[in-house]
């Protein structure tokens, strides 16, 4: 079974530039999460999708961040414009909505460096 796929793995951009991350969840997983992990910290939830619907985006900085999950499968997370403080690892995870354990399967992440 293929795991969660993310691309790119690494991205270096200058501040004020736009950037986008892509995620392909495990087949059949209805729930998709985007997290940001700063150095030395745990992952922080940015947004959670149930199928195509964003059910929790309370931690998403909506002035510069946007996300979409068209057709309830792949998802993209965009930052425009990027700021120095956005440097972090962006993790995508997916889970079966029906699974009570809330076990999430994570991708390898995209390491973003804003210069």
């Amino acid at each position, binding site marked *: 079974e293929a795991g969660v796929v993310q691309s790119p793995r690494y991205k270096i951009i200058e501040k004020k530039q736009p950037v986008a991350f892509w995620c392909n969840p495990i087949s059949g997983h209805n729930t998709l999460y985007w997290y940001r992990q700063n150095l030395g910290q*745990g*992952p922080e939830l940015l947004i959670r999708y149930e199928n195509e619907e964003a059910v929790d985006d309370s931690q998403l900085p909506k002035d510069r961040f946007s996300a979409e999950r068209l057709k309830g499968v792949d998802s993209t997370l965009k930052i425009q414009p990027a700021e120095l403080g956005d440097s972090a690892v962006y993790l995508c995870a997916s889970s079966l909505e029906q699974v009570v354990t809330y*076990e999430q*399967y994570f991708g*390898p992440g995209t390491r973003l460096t804003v210069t």
Partner: protein
Amino acid sequence: DQQVKQNSPSLSVQEGRISILNCDYTNSMFDYFLWYKKYPAEGPTFLISISSIKDKNEDGRFTVFLNKSAKHLSLHIVPSQPGDSAVYFCAASSASGNQFYFGTGTSLTVIP
């Protein structure tokens, strides 16, 4: 406002001995707790979980203990192996799944 705390950033243990990783939480609405393990350049991987209706869950060398009154949980690894060296994250969730928080992680080093 850190709702899930791991106060020990690092831990070193001799191979074969017990590793104990601790986690505290503040929100009494949390009722499901998970431990994830993370190697460098990889995403976290699920290790073990426990529901608030239990106080212990065991899976092979890994056991998680939950003390609801103290809002504390711990992960025991016995015996510790060098391959267990990784960062361990504690996570907590509410029944609705609408809240999901990770701790800051504890870096475990198992010395051969």
